[in-house]
């Protein structure tokens, strides 16, 4: 940049430095103050690669071991595993573009926004490493998913070609999101991503109803991958050339979201992660406010408030709807149908739906001020918050277990089981929403993934633990393929325990309570 004449300030001027030298200045100073060196960095990279590699190998091995059963009754509509994998790739593309749009993909948050963006240096040079990192991340994440699917799905395209093709497509997806950020707004990329995600279940239903049964996945020739790669590289160069056109306000917004999301990941706080990725796009204003005529007393006030939070969050409603179809989809894929797969699909899809129903509770945990305004005790408040998740998850379970019942040609016992098991999810939703943050000031445990505080795993298990206990009878029924009457009784008891446990206001862990009891006994002996 040629030197600009300014009215005030130091008289002695030199040319404005290159962006690269500003980045190097920061990096050099950071290195000077850092405790770890290149060895520590290499060690971190090595451990990360090893962890991802082990996780991928375990996933491939586990998927390969899953038993496959013939359906007990003939089904006229079905899709193949390869067909389902194609749908999974569609969902992956949607997730990538949507996430990239939510995170920018290019951004500058915190100190970078305050100290770098106002500099008159070439902004493109400042943003390039960030953009490159996001594009590479898209490629690596896609490659990891493709590796698992390529080895788990037998036959068809060679694994190498699948992985290469999907990785290149992942890079292209992030580049598309970046170009949309430059030309329009991140919101467009988010909508495109969400649209693709929403299209995935529709495509899955179409594949089942149309009996689409391809034998291989994405049988794209090498030249096709090369062509896609060339387009992705061309797009990446175009994005690089246009980085300087992104306004600071968009960079600041994206940077703030990325910083919040990174903080949530590092502190193992999935609730904060959801808020980071969702709040930015939430509508800040409504056309009109409801008069709340249904509210007559504190319990109804809470129920109406919880229902409104859910009804005004299309993302969560979609999450509940789509996950309800997952068990049916597993049943409609003969290559995948097996009791273990079905049980896994039921528990995993149910957990995602459960998280969507717990949104209001998660917000109440973050800012409990509104709850405190109501004339109710803590336990009564917590129990009132069970109602909306309980009702919604009962409907969800009716769909999920109903499809199992239809597949087993004996729907009535399965529907009865669903009515008894559905509310148990609400216990999990609440326990998960109100779990305390890990105690970062306690002793740290060294793990290959870095130091984590003692008890972090116990904190993360709050919620899933209630699901495992409360849904154990239903899961056993899915695994066994039948619903004995005794099991219905056991399920009713398990649901009652799950509801009681999930609505408990106790925040101490069992270990904490034992330690405190021991301490109190010691004091008494003195």
């Amino acid at each position, binding site marked *: 940049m040629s030197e600009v004449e300014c009215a005030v300030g*130091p008289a002695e001027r030199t040319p404005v430095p290159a962006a690269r030298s500003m980045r190097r200045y920061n990096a050099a100073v*950071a290195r000077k103050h*850092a405790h770890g060196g290149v060895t520590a960095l290499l060690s971190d990279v090595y451990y990360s690669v090893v962890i991802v590699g082990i996780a991928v190998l375990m996933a491939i091995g586990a998927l390969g071991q899953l038993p496959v059963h013939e359906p007990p009754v003939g089904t006229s509509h079905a899709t193949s595993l390869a067909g389902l994998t194609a749908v999974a790739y569609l969902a992956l593309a949607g997730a990538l573009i949507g996430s990239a749009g939510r995170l920018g993909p290019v951004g500058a948050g915190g100190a970078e926004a305050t100290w770098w963006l106002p500099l008159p240096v070439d902004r493109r040079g400042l943003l390039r490493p960030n953009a490159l990192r996001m594009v590479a991340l898209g490629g690596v994440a896609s490659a990891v998913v493709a590796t698992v699917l390529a080895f788990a799905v037998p036959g068809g395209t060679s694994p190498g070609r699948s992985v290469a093709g999907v990785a290149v497509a992942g890079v292209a997806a992030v580049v598309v999101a970046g170009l949309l950020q430059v030309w329009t707004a991140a919101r467009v990329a988010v909508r495109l991503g969400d649209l693709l995600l929403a299209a995935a279940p529709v495509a899955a239903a179409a594949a089942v109803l149309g009996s689409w049964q391809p034998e291989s996945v994405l049988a794209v020739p090498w030249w096709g991958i090369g062509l896609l790669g060339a387009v992705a590289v061309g797009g990446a160069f175009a994005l690089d050339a246009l980085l300087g056109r992104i306004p600071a306000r968009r960079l600041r917004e994206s940077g703030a979201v990325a910083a919040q999301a990174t903080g949530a990941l590092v502190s193992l706080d999935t609730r904060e992660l959801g808020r980071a990725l969702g709040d930015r796009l939430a509508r800040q204003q409504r056309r009109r406010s409801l008069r709340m005529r249904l509210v007559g007393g504190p319990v109804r006030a809470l129920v109406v408030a919880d229902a409104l939070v859910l009804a005004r969050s299309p993302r969560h409603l979609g999450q509940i709807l789509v996950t309800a179809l997952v068990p049916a989809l597993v049943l409609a894929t003969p290559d995948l149908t097996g009791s273990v797969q079905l049980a896994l699909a039921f528990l995993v899809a149910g957990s995602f739906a459960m998280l969507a129903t717990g949104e209001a509770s998660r917000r109440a945990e973050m800012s409990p001020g509104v709850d405190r305004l109501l004339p109710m005790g803590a336990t009564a408040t917590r129990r009132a918050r069970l109602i909306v998740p309980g009702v919604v998850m009962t409907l969800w379970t009716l769909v999920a277990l109903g499809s199992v019942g239809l597949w087993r040609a004996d729907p009535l016992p399965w529907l009865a089981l669903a009515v008894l098991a559905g509310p148990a999810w609400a216990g999990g939703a609440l326990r998960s929403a109100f779990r305390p943050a890990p105690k970062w000031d306690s002793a740290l445990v060294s793990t290959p993934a870095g130091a984590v505080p003692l008890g972090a795993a116990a904190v993360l298990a709050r919620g899933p633990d209630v699901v495992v206990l409360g849904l154990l009878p239903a899961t056993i029924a899915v695994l066994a393929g039948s619903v004995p009457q005794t099991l219905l009784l056991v399920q009713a008891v398990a649901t009652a325990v799950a509801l009681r446990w999930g609505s408990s206001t106790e925040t101490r862990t069992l270990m904490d309570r034992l330690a405190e009891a021991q301490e109190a006994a010691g004091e008494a002996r003195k």
Partner: protein
Amino acid sequence: MSRARPPAVLRVSKLSVGWTGRPVCGQASFTLPAGRSLALVGPNGSGKSTLLRAILGLLEPLSGSVQLLGVEVDERRASFRAQVSAVLDDDAWFPALTVAEHLYLVARGHGVGDAQDEVDALLDEFGLTGHADVLPTALSSGQRRRLLLAAGLVRPRSLLVLDEPEQRLDTATRQLLAERLNAEKEAGGAVLVATHDPDLLAAVADRAVIVGDETRLVSTAEAVDALRPGVL
């Protein structure tokens, strides 16, 4: 014989700002010549900071225009960033950079020839010399505010924009700030400042804009009166 008017550094015409398409205050129109200062006053939430952000190109205006030295504002242009120094209410710091290193970053990024002399002088002026080698997070909130002000002054500029600079400052530093802003005007710089402090307003501003439902340009004396309790 009519006196020659100094050229306008900043020209704001029928500027409307707000969120989700709704204006937060009335349209603003004013010009700010070189060597003058203009204050924005108004109660909390009246739209002063939103107006400043739109003027700096950090927020898309709903309507109207903002020109810096005759050119439409576009913060993506390096020449705009070279001319405008803004001290907003940011409180973000590079975790590994010390107080002095933050100032060096700004000075060198703007091509200041003798960065060390400039940084040393400002550290001394704002009472931060003893804290030059500590991280900003170890400073008090008032000291961090002083560091932000020093960062705004360590670089060349034609327009200095400050958002409530008096916040968290002690009386002596407020006085120093007023002197500094008057020196800025004497050197030919233009100053745009949003403030709640009647003393700073009276000491520095040549005119003022009362921001509200009807945003209007007033004399400094009228703005000082407006800052009295119960008026705005």
